């Protein structure tokens, strides 16, 4: 049988999927053990013990200086920035994308600008944001907005223009005015696609968040990682990275589930 026609069973597929994780863990464990055997104070590859101790210190004990539970404070601060940034970007994407997708006059006017903006590397204008908006929360949120909104705008506009022309004619023969065409035909059909666009934008959004926090912040997941880097505190950095990954996966899956629940027609080939 050809290789392309050989499919794993359910159990085999799960096992095959888990295997790389186990291999990675084993390699790390072996390397860590070896280094710790040579030097019990080695910081580069901390063992499980050191990492749980670090998590316990960061998440479940008050910080001696500030009295906060640092990991939760960091998580809350980062999620707040991420949520605000992505939320504002999604809203802008919806408004501009719908207008661009359905109104030829607006498209002629705005589409070139959106295309140009989406080509600007957001990190290159981070200094400008710091200068204009100061070092506070606004500049970090703005970086996420500027980094993710233009691409989502283009995506939404593209999806709107992909709606069949027959539908556009049909709703006009039902007496719809332009506003109704947007609110009753384009908007509801583009919402689940917007959620998909948000899911894809979350990767870049995390990147911009951590970059901004690393440069100017007093709390946040990215801030903490870059702070403890000075002491080579891999026992904190590694759990933080895993925690960020877990958060990203949970957010992504929540959005996927919301999409299924809210738009039952969308995931069954109804579009």
């Amino acid at each position, binding site marked *: 049988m050809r290789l392309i026609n050989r499919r794993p069973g359910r159990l085999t597929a799960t096992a095959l999927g888990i295997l790389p994780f186990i291999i990675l863990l084993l390699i790390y464990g072996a390397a860590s053990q070896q280094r710790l055997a040579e030097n019990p104070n080695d910081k580069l590859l901390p063992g499980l013990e050191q990492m749980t101790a670090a998590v316990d210190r960061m998440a479940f004990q008050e910080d001696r200086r500030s009295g906060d539970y640092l990991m939760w404070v960091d998580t809350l601060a980062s999620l707040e920035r991420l949520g605000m940034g992505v939320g504002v970007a999604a809203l802008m994407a919806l408004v501009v994308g719908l207008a661009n997708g359905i109104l030829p006059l607006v498209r002629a006017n705005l589409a070139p600008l959106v295309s140009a903006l989406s080509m600007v590397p957001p990190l290159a204008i981070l200094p400008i944001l710091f200068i204009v908006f100061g070092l506070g929360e606004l500049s970090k949120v703005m970086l996420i907005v500027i980094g993710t909104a233009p691409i989502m705008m283009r995506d939404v506009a593209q999806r709107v223009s992909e709606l069949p022309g027959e539908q556009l004619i*049909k709703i006009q*023969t*039902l007496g719809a005015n332009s506003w109704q065409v947007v609110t*009753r035909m384009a908007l*509801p059909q583009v919402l689940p696609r917007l959620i998909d666009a948000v899911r894809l934008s979350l990767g870049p959004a995390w990147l911009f968040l951590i970059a901004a926090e690393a440069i100017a912040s007093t709390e946040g997941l990215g801030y903490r990682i870059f702070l403890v880097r000075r002491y080579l505190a891999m026992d904190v950095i590694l759990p933080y990275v895993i925690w960020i990954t877990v958060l990203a996966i949970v957010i992504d899956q929540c959005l996927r589930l919301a999409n299924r629940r809210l738009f039952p027609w969308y995931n069954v080939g*109804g579009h």
Partner: protein
Amino acid sequence: MSFISVNKLWKEYGDQVVLENLNLEVEQGEFCTLVGASGCGKSTFLKMLLGQESQSRGELLLEGETFPAEPDRNRGIVFQRYSVFPHLTVRQNVLMGLELEQKPVLGKLFGSARSEALKKVDDMLELVGLGPSANKWPHELSGGMQQRLAIAQSLIMRPRVLLLDEPFGALDPGIRKDMHELLLQLWREIGITIFMVTHDLHEGFYLGTRLLVFDKLRNDPHAPNAFGATITYDLPIGQTDERLLRDIDQSVTNTARYQAA
């Protein structure tokens, strides 16, 4: 004055002549079927009736007035595909037009106005045989059922003209026959004026009151686009026989061959 009158109508795209010198008078309540080879302008003519295209020369009048240049609620349309909204259930699809008409800003009905409208919707769904499927999504319906839905969606607006663009082209022959019966029954009950474009000459020959054959009178093999099509046969149905059907079939097939060459 006729309900719809077409006077010396031409449609050209640059050098390509699609329709030449079209003349037609249609009375209210007629059921016209439009047949012809591909590229003979029957769909273009339907688009002009719809307001999606405008003529190059000539007049297209609805009760003496020029046709509006964009689609409106007086002219319903059913396409071969994609005529229904995938994000609305069957019932919501039919309700849509009533909501749009009564609520220009919100586009949604609530309370007693909504239940009143839903009563009309359910009557319409019964009429087209979709009563039991009222709460399904369009993707759960077969192709024939989707077309029933598209027809119901248009008819609830009581349009003055119903335009059908190869509505049954994608359906199986058996289902197509059911749809013919449904369409004839609706037409008799509502008394609406219908224009239907079809590929299927037989369908055109036995459905409706009037057959309009779009064909080219002149064919130049070296310049297939130089001459446009016009209405070559305008027949009341009932006076038709097999030999005439064969003649028309022959002529349309020849034109199609010229087009392809």
